[in-house]
């Protein structure tokens, strides 16, 4: 091979890695539109499964292809270009209904079909990458182009998503790859295969055309927006593709959505414009400004604290992420003339701003709530957070972190209250009611941790048929008002320190979990053991474990899953899905990667066998360790960087970039220095862990540019060293046992499959810090195996 050929191999490797990662990100977006957020880990695991399978395939055919490596490399690239549109088209064309999985066996087979069909392009793509290591080229260089391509692939789709839909972004990326491949073929002077390329392009164009023509990337009929669009005179008033999701504003005759409405209210409810993100309802815009039509806003559980400041126009209220205009209008009809709105989604913020452009008493700020808490000097008489995060905003981490309901955040909110101010938090009370219990346990933990005096006298917890509203005030709320108001509005009091047993469950039957007994136990001295023994996860959420929506516990998992079958559809199982995915990917990884690899190992001579097993373990450990750093860092830095999407792109980009530089430099460093540097890695990981915690505490209010630079500086040293282990060992194996290389690629892929999900699961169950400490242990073990 000459230099020109080297360059083209590197180019193909770079753009294959680029396309694979881009495809992964865009598929997550497409899945989110078609199915729901909970399937994001599935995409990650099937991509990594593809890596593993490719290694096994190469292990079996390596002897046959060594003589014609370049020809085989070209054939693999053809397969890759062909498999992307074909499998993508088949996935979209074969309908799957995840809602019916529980009772329809056919849907399970369709789910398997989707899984397998989507593994194909990832497998063909990684075959190209794995074959790259068989060329007589430096492994560190190959690894550099692989990582650098992946880093670019992590950034470009997020930029494209500002202007294009996920489908068109994927099309652009695909045809970029085809163009690069065409140029490479020209350089390789393989003009005779142009006809194949033409056929591939032709077939791809048909697939893309059919996908667009048949409108295959459409919402599942079971999404909220599909239902709204079925209504008479339904119209989409606005559509905007954003990296946070597809935002749509829908109107239809009779389209109304009201939560926590009193059954005593007998008035009418005006027509609404509903906001959707990826087809899930997220907020409401009201055209009407007529006080009579808006009367219903006074009859929802979240309106309760507004009665305490009614018609006191000098009062200041703060609305956090209202995702629409209902809360603002509620403030107006209660006679409040100083309303500050924090809206994190800039597109929704601009929509709200447009609705109230003539009203000077309303200030709409597009910023992150936690950043506002840190920087605001204003004090508020009421801080209202109503049903925030009922939709998912993260495009990659389906089991969303929620940093607004953590103990630390609640305390920051408390500090913004005026001398008699109230925090009002409204959540769902739908069975089993864990959402409501969790917010209560978090607020109690906050009061305990920060020593709020006599807090039990300042808490009011009320419920409607499907919502609860929890109020924490700085001074005691007037008892008489509370009783007369609950009677007037038809709401039950779940907790108030003056509550008598005979006042319980006046309007709603006692719930199995969400009841007075649970609440008083959480308030009692035996709070910690009670929470520990509770069948669901009701632990207070903290910045280290901000999984507000997780209800599962390992020890009661079996029981909860069997109960969940009765009341939760598959796509609402939260972390339960992760557990199922871990099992599923473990099983498929075992069958498709580990078993065939072990079969190959069994063919090796005894001497090679021990070395092989040692190498196996090494690549397994580093495969796990890498994701045990990457996933918690993405999750942990969401708070610091403000948005999941920023955290995902910046962490992924910098990890891959600095790892690629590390791999490039690793081959130029002597073995003894490699050893020293690698033994420093666990220490650097632990230092970075403490630094991240520190960042969140003191630099949360810094500018975005400084935050990005700080993140790059934080990640650079660890990612640089994390680029060492893979190429160092591959180079060693290349010299002694080149036949092992595909298998090592495979086992590394297998480990990555498990760890990508396992890291997310462990973060939920044990917190980020534990996962990062585990990664340091895994790197220590791996280093001790080879040096």
């Amino acid at each position, binding site marked *: 091979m000459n230099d020109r050929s080297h360059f083209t191999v590197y180019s193909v490797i770079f753009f294959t890695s680029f396309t694979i990662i881009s495809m992964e990100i865009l598929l997550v977006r497409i899945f989110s539109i078609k199915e729901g957020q909970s399937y994001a880990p599935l995409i990650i695991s099937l991509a990594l499964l593809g890596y593993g399978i490719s290694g096994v395939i190469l292990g079996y055919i390596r002897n046959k292809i060594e003589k014609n490596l370049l020809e085989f490399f070209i054939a693999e690239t053809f397969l890759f270009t062909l498999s992307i549109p074909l499998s993508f088209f088949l996935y979209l064309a074969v309908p799957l209904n995840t*809602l019916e999985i529980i*009772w329809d066996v056919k849907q399970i087979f369709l789910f398997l079909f989707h899984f397998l069909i989507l593994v194909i392009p990832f497998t063909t793509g990684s075959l190209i990458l794995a074959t790259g290591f068989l060329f007589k080229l430096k492994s560190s260089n190959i690894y550099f182009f692989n990582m650098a391509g992946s880093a670019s692939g992590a950034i470009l789709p997020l930029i494209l998503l500002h202007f294009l839909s996920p489908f068109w972004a994927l099309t652009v990326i695909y045809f970029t790859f085809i163009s690069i491949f065409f140029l490479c073929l020209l350089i390789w002077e393989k003009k005779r295969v142009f006809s194949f390329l033409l056929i591939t392009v032709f077939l791809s164009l048909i697939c893309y055309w059919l996908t667009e023509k048949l409108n295959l990337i459409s919402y599942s*009929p*079971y*999404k*909220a927006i599909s*239902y709204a669009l*079925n*209504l*008479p*005179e339904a119209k989409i008033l606005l559509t905007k593709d954003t990296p946070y999701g597809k935002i749509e504003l829908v109107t*239809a*005759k*009779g*389209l*109304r*959505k*009201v*939560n926590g*409405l009193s*059954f*005593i*209210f*007998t*008035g*009418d*409810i005006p027509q609404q414009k509903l906001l959707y993100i990826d087809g899930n*309802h997220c907020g409401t815009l009201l055209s009407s400004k007529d006080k009579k039509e808006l009367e219903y806003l006074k009859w929802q559980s979240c309106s309760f604290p507004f009665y305490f400041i009614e018609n006191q126009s000098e009062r200041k209220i703060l609305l956090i992420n209202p995702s629409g205009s209902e809360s603002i209008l509620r403030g107006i009809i209660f006679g409040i003339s100083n309303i500050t709105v924090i809206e994190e989604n800039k597109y929704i913020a601009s929509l709200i701003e447009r609705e109230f452009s003539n009203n000077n008493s309303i200030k709409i700020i597009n910023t992150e709530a936690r950043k506002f808490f840190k920087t605001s000097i204003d004090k508020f008489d009421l801080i209202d957070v109503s049903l925030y995060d009922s939709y998912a905003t993260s495009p990659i981490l389906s089991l969303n972190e929620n940093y607004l309901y953590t103990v630390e955040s609640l305390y920051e909110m408390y500090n913004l209250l005026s001398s008699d101010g109230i925090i009002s938090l409204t959540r769902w009370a*739908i*069975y089993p009611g864990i959402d409501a219990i969790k917010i209560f346990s978090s607020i109690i933990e906050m009061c305990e941790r920060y020593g709020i005096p006599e807090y039990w006298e300042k808490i009011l917890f009320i419920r409607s*048929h*499907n919502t609860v509203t929890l109020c924490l005030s700085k001074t005691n709320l007037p008892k008489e008002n509370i009783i007369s108001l609950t009677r007037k509005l*038809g709401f039950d009091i779940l907790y108030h320190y003056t509550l008598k047993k005979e006042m319980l469950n*006046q*309007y*709603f*039957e006692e*719930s199995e979990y969400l009841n007075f007994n649970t609440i008083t136990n959480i308030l009692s001295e035996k709070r910690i053991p009670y929470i520990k023994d509770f069948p669901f996860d009701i632990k207070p959420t903290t910045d280290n474990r901000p999984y507000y929506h997780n209800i599962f516990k390992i020890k009661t998992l079996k029981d909860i899953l069997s109960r969940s079958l*009765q*009341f*939760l*559809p598959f796509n*609402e199982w939260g972390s339960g899905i992760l557990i199922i995915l871990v099992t599923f990917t473990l099983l498929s990884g075992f069958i498709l990667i580990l078993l065939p690899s072990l079969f190959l190992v069994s063919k090796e001579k005894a001497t090679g066998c021990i070395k092989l097993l040692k190498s196996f373990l090494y690549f397994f450990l580093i495969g796990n360790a890498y994701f045990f750093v990457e996933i918690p860092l993405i999750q942990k830095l969401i708070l610091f960087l403000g948005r999941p999407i920023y955290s995902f792109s910046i962490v992924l980009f910098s990890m891959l970039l600095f790892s690629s530089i590390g791999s490039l430099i690793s081959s130029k460093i002597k073995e003894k220095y490699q050893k020293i540097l690698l033994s420093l890695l666990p220490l650097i990981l632990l230092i970075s862990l403490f630094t991240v915690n520190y960042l969140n505490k003191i630099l949360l209010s810094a500018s975005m540019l400084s935050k990005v630079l700080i993140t790059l500086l934080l990640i650079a040293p660890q990612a640089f060293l994390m680029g060492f282990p893979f190429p160092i060992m591959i180079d060693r194996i290349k010299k002694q046992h080149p036949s092992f290389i595909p298998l090592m690629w495979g086992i590394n892929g297998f480990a990555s499959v498990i760890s990508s999900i396992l890291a997310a699961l462990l973060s939920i169950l044990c917190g980020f810090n534990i996962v990062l400490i585990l990664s340091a242990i895994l790197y220590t073990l791996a280093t001790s195996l080879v040096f």
Partner: protein
Amino acid sequence: MKVKKILAILLIFKTFVFADEYKILRQQMVKFQIEGRGIKNTNVLNAFIEVPRHYFVPDNIKNLAYEDRPLPIGYGQTISQPYIVALMTELIKPEPNMKVLEIGTGSGYQAAILSRLVKEVYTVEIISNLLKTAQTKFKELNYTNIYTKWDDGYYGWKENAPYDAIVVTCATEFVPPPLIKQLKVGGVIVIPVGPPFRVQELLLVKKIDKKTVKTSIVEKVIFVGMTREKR
């Protein structure tokens, strides 16, 4: 002529044989799916034996009529699982002198069951084609105490109010205030509340007096949403 005669005999034979088969299936459905799950009201059980469920199911899926599952009936709507229909019926404690309002006629099966147990059934459906099909079935089965209306169920049926009970057979995100208004004091509403195609709570709403209603959760269910305005 001979061929026609033979065909006619075969047709009668087929109807006879299948009618018998459906009856057996119906008895099994009542025994295992309904009674087996705790529905004890004898009148309700008898109504389920009497009303031919397969009659309310589209022809292409008639063979599935007695299975323990909801079935599609077109227009994005479904006929509920037999147990859910039985549960909702039992919850209103049907009596022969009662006047019941049903929101969401759909296939007409729930109204047919109710008509065997109460004096009058008023049923409102928004999808005109579904209503027409259901009207034909009621006529063919001679269920004369069912009154139908093509309208938006959100507003109930004001002209015949008040009702002893209201059965809502489609999911709604909240209890429509007009329905509470049209309910007699002491009456009940059985209604699945929650987003369409997600888990909803089957609520039993009891009107204690003009200003007080009390609710309890009966079951977790999945219903198709309430469609507003006529189509």
